[in-house]
């Protein structure tokens, strides 16, 4: 019994560096010593912050880790190759790493102040959402990714200003990832589409009816009610795109709705809202003989 205790302590001493040693290949803003003012390390440059802090930001505390072996793990936080002879850096911020900050953004206030901002967006000549949401692909609009989108107003004087990082960025309780693209139910919708007349080009709130309600980015959904589509796509004397597919399901319960949807959605039971528009009682595929 007397010999077991020293042996146990010996084992702990041996195992400790392997189990509990810091992993210097990962940088965390939540480490106490990394919670200093942001500009201690990050240099705010016009018009955006596009690079990692200089070596001096790290080396003052991490000199031992900097000179540890030929390929110090700490280098991999910023550099694509952990070699003193290669200065290539990872993109800033590194899309492969988890996000450590959430963004506080009052969506409604920004809509308020830029609401009348006019752009040459033919034929309507209004489109204030496009100030931030440009075209990403034919299907999707983009979201701002750089500070440049904010600094044109918030560079100085208008809080939160460029050196008040905490005004927008709050340290998250745990690192997290975000989906690269939002899940689109009507995967085939094209924002700039709508035939030769480009009838899809409309004011954003024509379809995104809830977007002016949102006070923050949390839970923000680009939800579009079916009525926004069926105003044209299921109207007597115009088109019957929805009704035709509901009829097709009546005939074959395995029919996939393809006009708007990809197969992952098109194989599901159409929601009640679709049947309401078509002025029919809702049915489930399994009940169709």
């Amino acid at each position, binding site marked *: 019994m007397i010999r077991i205790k020293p042996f146990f302590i010996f084992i702990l001493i041996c195992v400790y560096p392997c189990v509990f040693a810091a992993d210097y290949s990962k940088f965390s803003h939540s480490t106490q010593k990394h919670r200093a003012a942001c500009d201690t390390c990050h240099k705010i440059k016009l018009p955006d912050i596009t690079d990692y802090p200089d070596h001096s930001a790290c080396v003052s505390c991490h000199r031992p880790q900097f000179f540890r072996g030929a390929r110090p793990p700490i280098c991999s936080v910023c550099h694509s190759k952990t070699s003193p002879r290669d200065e290539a850096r990872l993109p800033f911020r590194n899309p492969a790493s988890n996000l450590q900050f959430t963004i506080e953004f009052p969506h409604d206030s920004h809509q308020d*102040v830029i*609401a009348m*901002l006019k752009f040459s967006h033919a034929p309507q000549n209004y489109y204030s959402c496009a100030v931030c949401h440009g075209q990403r692909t034919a299907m999707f609009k983009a979201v701002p990714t750089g500070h440049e989108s904010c600094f*044109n107003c918030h560079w100085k004087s208008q809080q939160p200003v460029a050196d008040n990082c905490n005004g927008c960025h709050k340290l998250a309780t745990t690192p997290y990832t975000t989906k690269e693209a939002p899940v689109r139910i009507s995967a085939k919708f094209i924002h700039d589409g709508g035939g030769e007349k480009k009838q899809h080009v409309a004011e954003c709130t*024509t379809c995104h009816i809830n977007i002016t*309600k949102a006070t923050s980015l949390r839970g923000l959904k680009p939800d579009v009610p079916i009525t926004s589509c069926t105003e044209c796509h299921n109207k007597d004397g115009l088109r019957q795109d929805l009704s035709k597919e509901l009829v097709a399901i009546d005939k074959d319960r395995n029919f996939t709705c393809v006009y708007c949807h990809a197969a992952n959605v098109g194989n599901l039971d159409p929601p009640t809202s679709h049947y309401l528009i078509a002025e029919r*009682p809702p049915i489930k595929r399994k009940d169709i003989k």
Partner: protein
Amino acid sequence: MRVVCVALLLMITAVLAQNQTGVLRLRVRVKLDDASPLRGLPRKRFFLIPGTLEQNRALIDSIERQPLITRDCYYQKLGASAALIDWLKDGDCESVYCRAVEKDFVTGPKAVPEFATAFTASQKEYGNDETARQWLTTNLTPDLRDGFYRDRQRALQALLKQAPAVQSVMTDHNGTAYFTDLGPGSYVLTNLIPTELGQTLVTWNCEVQVKAGDLATEKPYLVSNRKEKLVKCVSVEKPKPVCTAN
């Protein structure tokens, strides 16, 4: 045929009854004067407050009593140039952020003096004309930039303290907006802060009944400053106050 239609309607009603939320399809159409046609009121916020007018009496009284300075008076008091006041008025703007500052308003005969000064400072600071113009607002004084908007926000926030669980939406260019996911019941529809419309200040405070249903079944709730056919909520209008000297 009639039996089928009735059965269909009953089924639709049953489906609607299962859906416990309702929608208010707001349509705001106004006239600047009696000779003008009705037109949509674009880009204005409306608020929906749970309860009846009577239940929200204290709030309605506060809305009606609030002292309010108009945009023109605010900027005149600041000593802003007539060109800036006109520029704001032209876009019905509460702050300089609401319109892109085009080249014409920075230099040349149409230039707004405040913009020209800020542009010169921005040129020195940012080094090129395009950035200087696009980042021009960073060199305007806070009051000129968005002081009027902040004033109105302060008044709005003070009123909203008296009204929990408020939904707010902004009208589109046609004056249409949607309140969704509403529990059935009574609400007060209001703009809280008077809207400047021509030479008048316009306030809406109306009681609305929301029933369970969705967009497919909901008819527009027409709001106006004129009592006309189908208009369900008519505003109270007051003449704009005369601006006092500095």
